[in-house]
């Protein structure tokens, strides 16, 4: 099938790109491995930042400064400036297409304070901000007649090399329902597949689908990745299930307490600092709790209804009357596919947006409320640019040969005998990552983790799938996801080992200070697995 723009992923970033590419006049197809309303975006709770000054005094400049501070000197200032300046228009656009934002008494969009922000800046819809934005975007796509094809799993980006220029010309996907390989030809491809926190197995707030497929495929297609070592731990996930309790709980005045019921940190510091403070308490043998009892039942039901429901279900406690047991877990991956100021990767025609992309606005630590913002601002940019790129490049290629090649690869996996369970290996690597590649890191432990990754890589030929069916073989999809995650584990580790300093979410106990002379720069890594640094 042929179109101007193919978008991989139907979360917030993918749908915003689709809307803008469509409105720019391009023929757009969106491919998603699930359904468009089931993506990670629906789990975003806290809000979307914009300096509207609806509740307290705020300014675009303050938003820029807060973002840069949290990024620990390695964000691209012009990108941050663009993000924050566009924020107001982005929220106004969402409001105009029907996002049901919570309101102030005087009928403006309500705002609340998230960590690291100098003013109440996050616009929200109770604690369902991401869900309501995502569903409204989906409805908007329907109204425009944008074609969204469900349950297609990304296999590879297909590229073409001529005159030393690498350009994208399509994608291969596995139709989960039929088990057939399908090819979509296109001059522009937008990767919007989300982050890679699932490498932490159960130690993450993320959906089981956040497996970094787009990032791993882009790497194999020749794209460069950057800042892969920066992984944000959210301070407050439920202790047993790793399910997120929104930062808005602390923004509204929730306390963090240890077993002695003492407060031990500034709850509204940026996430990296709060996560480390909790980690230190836990190392001392303390349990850590979130206390929102004093906010009262009415407020909790009004502003944090989802939190109450989840705490009851997964911890058997009611936050109206009980302390909520929490721990920090992997939440957001700052690193991803490197893009330029036009959202394009180093592969011509291949664009990236959302958590899978690195627009260099988050640096070493992302501010709460900036990820939903990023989707809207850069989604618009990527959609517009992908449409105009496609308009100027009309190269047509017959890519049907790729069907056979990919089908053979999949058939070989189905034919292989499974001697080692990749599910067990995923759990193993997730536990190692939580312990060794988590909130505090040490070079020796990182090297140990990398050795474990290499060992598992060597064992890959012994792994396979027991389910031999063609129809809806989720065993096969999960194996492909595992292979992508393993590839990204290696990238994270070689970057984390090379960065001999501490900065934001990357904290090295053996090098606890920021080393601006050597490392005030973005790490870059490509398929050759060599790390370099660039500003």
């Amino acid at each position, binding site marked *: 099938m042929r179109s101007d723009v193919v978008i991989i992923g139907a979360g917030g970033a993918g749908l915003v790109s689709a809307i803008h590419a469509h409105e720019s006049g391009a023929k757009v197809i969106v491919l998603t491995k699930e*359904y468009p*309303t*089931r993506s990670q975006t629906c789990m975003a709770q806290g809000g979307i930042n914009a300096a509207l000054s609806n509740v307290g005094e705020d300014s675009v400049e303050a938003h820029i400064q807060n973002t840069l501070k949290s990024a620990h000197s390695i964000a691209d200032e012009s990108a941050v400036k663009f993000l924050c300046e566009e924020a107001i228009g982005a929220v106004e656009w969402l409001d105009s*297409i*029907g996002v049901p934002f919570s309101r102030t008494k005087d*009928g403006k969009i309500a705002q609340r304070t998230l960590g690291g922000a100098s003013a109440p800046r996050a616009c929200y819809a109770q604690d369902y901000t991401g869900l309501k934005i995502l569903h409204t975007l989906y*409805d908007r796509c*329907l109204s425009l007649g944008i074609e969204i094809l469900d349950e297609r799993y990304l296999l590879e980006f297909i590229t073409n090399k001529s005159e030393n220029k690498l350009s994208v010309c399509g994608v291969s996907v596995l139709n989960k329902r039929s088990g057939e390989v399908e090819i979509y030809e296109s001059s522009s491809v937008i990767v919007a597949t989300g982050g890679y926190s699932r490498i932490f197995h159960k130690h993450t707030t993320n959906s089981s689908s956040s497996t970094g497929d787009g990032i791993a495929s882009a790497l194999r297609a020749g794209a460069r990745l950057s800042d892969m070592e920066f992984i944000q731990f959210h301070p407050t996930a439920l202790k047993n299930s790793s399910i997120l309790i929104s930062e808005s709980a602390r923004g509204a005045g929730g306390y963090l307490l240890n077993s002695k019921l003492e407060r031990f940190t500034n709850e509204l510091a940026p996430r990296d600092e709060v996560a480390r403070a909790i980690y230190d308490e836990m190392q001392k043998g303390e349990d850590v709790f979130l206390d929102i009892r004093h906010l009262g039942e009415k407020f909790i039901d009004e502003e944090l209804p989802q939190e109450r429901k989840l705490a009851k279900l997964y911890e058997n406690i009611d936050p109206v009357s009980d302390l909520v047991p929490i721990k920090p877990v992997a939440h957001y991956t700052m690193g991803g596919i490197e893009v330029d100021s036009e959202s394009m990767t180093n592969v011509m025609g291949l664009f990236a947006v959302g958590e899978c992309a690195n627009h260099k606005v988050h640096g070493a630590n992302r501010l709460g409320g900036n990820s939903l913002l990023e989707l809207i601002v850069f989604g618009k940019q990527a959609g517009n640019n992908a449409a105009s790129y496609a308009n100027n490049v009309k190269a047509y290629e017959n890519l049907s040969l790729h069907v056979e090649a990919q089908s053979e690869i999949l058939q070989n996996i189905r034919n292989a005998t499974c001697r080692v369970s990749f599910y067990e290996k995923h759990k193993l690597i997730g536990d190692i990552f939580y312990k060794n590649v988590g909130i505090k890191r040490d070079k020796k432990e990182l090297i140990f983790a990398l050795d474990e990754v290499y060992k598992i890589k060597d064992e890959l030929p012994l792994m396979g799938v027991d389910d031999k069916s063609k129809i809806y073989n989720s*065993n096969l999809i999960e194996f492909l996801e595992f292979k992508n995650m393993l590839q990204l584990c290696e990238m994270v580790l070689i970057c984390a080992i090379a960065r001999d300093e501490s900065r934001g979410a990357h904290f090295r106990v053996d090098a606890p200070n920021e080393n601006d002379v050597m490392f005030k720069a973005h790490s870059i890594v490509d398929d050759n697995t060599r790390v370099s640094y660039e500003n």
Partner: protein
Amino acid sequence: MKINIQREKLTEYEFDLEDATLLEALNEIKTKQDPSLVYASGCRSSVCGSCAMRVNGKEILACAYKVQDGDLVEPLNNVPVIRDLVVNMNKAYKFNFKAKAWQSSPAKKISITQEEEKINEVQSDCILCGSCYSACPVYAVNSEFLGPFSLTRVWRYVSDKREENTKDKIDTIQTNGVWDCTLCNECTIVCPQDISSKADIEKLRAKSAMAGYMDPSFGSFGGSFDGSPTF
């Protein structure tokens, strides 16, 4: 603990988990016993809508239901089963398109009060899990019924100040729409987000009546329930 899962054949699985959600149980079975078991899941926090299925005949989210010994687990109703517990939602979702469940065009100059925002707050909590669709008995007689979640979504936009063309929305839901619902309330009982599509459909009926529409079944009787003529 033992549970039965409706696959091609009803299959019994045994596992050792305490105080677990059904999703945790399914994950345990898939990763340790039988990788060929197929089901959908995502967020595990009741917000993505992927893991809707039926237990002992009632729609639940597997991530929000504590599994019990002897449970019978089946796929959703009224949708084609692809394999095991995975169903094809395409036709069901298509009703959002048919019902024009969106805001007609971007709005300008918006001022919405707190009270106005609350009008459809619950309706916009919908996660499109399809539980209501599965529980709806109307599909047994009318496979083209727009259905509970699509109609709730129409109400969500019709009741929003930003929608400028409510007439078109109301016109659209007259066929296979608000009057085909039997108001049995099954959708409301199973909704994990506490949304009552039945109540939304009643509100849409009231709006339809104000727009000059009437229950077509009344028309066919040539009068009202008590047999007296209508004017």
